């Protein structure tokens, strides 16, 4: 009987701690959402906690009136999709041959790739390279320098290695070449890990800020994060088009910033729960040493 009671108490505390931790992850976002939807007077009176007070969509309207913001959203979406496709293609092309033990030079290439995980030229030589390649202030400077993640490559390679050889052998007997085997046999069997790695690449690009800060000065090519940085952290204010508008007087900078945060977060929140079951398995594959 005593054991049962202590078990109940134990369960209670476990649930309590988990709930508090989980809410701590969610509530800051809820507060920012509430701020973005609250009226100026409510924010000024410090009445906003986790529910909007005197709900208004003014800050979102002000945000959406800024054409450069819409363009930035479109540009970043295209950038993320294009980058993810390229990165996945290159990662697959590298990971598959490197699983073949018969391939001459395989170990040298693997070593060359792994070495880059521990040593790099650093920010300045990479910047000078981009300058010499003439890709500064072009989309390419946001796509090419990080086109393959060595970590993702190793994860994919160890997944490919875990597939049974017999399937590939029978395909080869049927007259398939290596590329055919890759596309017809290996990739269809690898959907979970491909989904995981695509998510990592896509979220990484959607959230990336440093490359744009270094390589992009042309405001037409500002990805969302750089634009947000200038609005939120640097307080450079939203585009002049909003300043011209009378509505701006009804919108507090706080609530506008909150709207920006929500604006950039929504796409991620929409995508990631659907992929959760994949990335957990993906991480586990990655934790197996390849």
């Amino acid at each position, binding site marked *: 009987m005593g054991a049962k009671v202590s078990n109940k108490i134990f369960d209670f505390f476990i649930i309590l701690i988990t709930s508090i931790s989980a809410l701590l992850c969610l509530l800051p976002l809820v507060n920012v959402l509430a*701020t973005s939807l609250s009226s100026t007077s409510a924010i000024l009176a410090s009445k906003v906690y986790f529910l909007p007070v005197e709900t208004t969509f003014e800050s979102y309207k002000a945000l959406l009136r800024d054409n450069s913001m819409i363009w930035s959203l479109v540009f970043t979406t295209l950038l993320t999709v294009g980058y993810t496709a390229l990165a996945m293609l290159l990662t697959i092309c590298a990971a598959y041959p490197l699983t073949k033990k018969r391939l001459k030079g395989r170990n040298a290439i693997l070593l060359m790739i792994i070495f880059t995980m521990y040593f790099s030229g650093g920010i300045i030589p990479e910047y000078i390279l981009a300058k010499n390649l003439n890709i500064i202030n072009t989309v390419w400077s946001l796509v090419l320098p990080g086109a393959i993640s060595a970590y993702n490559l190793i994860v994919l390679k160890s997944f490919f290695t875990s597939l049974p050889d017999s399937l590939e052998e029978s395909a080869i007997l049927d007259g398939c070449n290596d590329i055919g085997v*890759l596309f017809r046999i290996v990739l269809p069997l690898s959907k979970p890990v491909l989904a995981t790695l695509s998510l990592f690449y896509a979220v990484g690009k959607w*959230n990336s800020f440093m490359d744009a800060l270094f390589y992009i000065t042309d405001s037409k090519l500002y990805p969302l994060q750089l634009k947000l*940085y200038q609005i939120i952290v640097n307080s450079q204010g939203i585009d002049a088009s909003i300043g011209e508008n009378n509505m701006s007087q009804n919108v507090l900078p706080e609530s506008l910033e909150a709207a920006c945060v929500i604006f950039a977060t929504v796409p*991620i929140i929409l995508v990631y729960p659907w992929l959760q079951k994949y990335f957990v398995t993906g991480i586990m594959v990655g934790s197996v040493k390849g």
Partner: protein
Amino acid sequence: MDKANVVVSKAQTFIPQKKGFMYYLKRDKYLYLLLIFPVAYFVIFKYLPMYGVVIAFKEYNIFLPVWESPWIGFDAFKEVFRTNDFWRALRNTFMLNGLDLLLGFPAPIILAIIINELRSKWFKRVSQTMLYLPHFLSWVIIGGMVLQIFAPNFGLIDNIVKSLGFESIPFLTEKWPWVATYTAVGIWQNAGWGMIIYLAAIAGINSELYEAAEVDGAGRLRRIWNITLPCIRGTIIILFILNIGRISMIGFDRPFILGNASVKDFSDVISTYVYRVGLQSSRYNIATAVGLFQSLVGLVFLTVSNYITNKSGEEGIW
């Protein structure tokens, strides 16, 4: 020696023992074809910049090719080591990473153990989904949230602190409170994600161990202490080693975005220093020297900690 062996060895002399590289190139041509672009990527975007570190030893002029710039030896390093800003950035890097290690490292372990004890499957899933979420938010977004929530006057925390009858706390504008905020936000962002790997390790534990312990009358805390923790010891050690190995490496986004002018003494780290000196003041050789110094220190830390792991009987990273 018997006859059969002689015959075999004679036959072998007629077949070329070692095939030329061209043979393998032809046999595996499709595989090499696939590798062309990825290998080109690593050569151009990873290895060319490694050659670029010679800039640290040159009087580099952006209008001249690297190889035409005159050598200046270790002058750039000497200048770096003379500046106070560099030592401050180095100290801050170790301080902030040290705090992350001390306070941030145990968080995912504790979280994984707690989550593992949950009985309800759906509750487990829902709370995990929420705990992973911060990992997917960019530092710009987190920075925006932090500014909002910790803002004086209207911020959530300030509202709560004041309604409890306390004075406002300068979370973002004074040194030590800023360090606390920086560390706490780091834990907030990483703990949930970091827990995945420990959950995987816990899932791999043989359930018979728990059943046997239960039969022996061990309570749940006892089982955590005597089974769960020892079984994930290897994972904990390897991740700890990995983190110690990276203690001199610091990301750019987090200190850059959370930092501000009033806490510069604590928020300026190596990566932000390199950005400031290199890209904003165009002192390429100085910034490259700092970057190279950091890379080498990092490599030393990683090698030494890996060596210690292997020596202590655990399996290191290589």
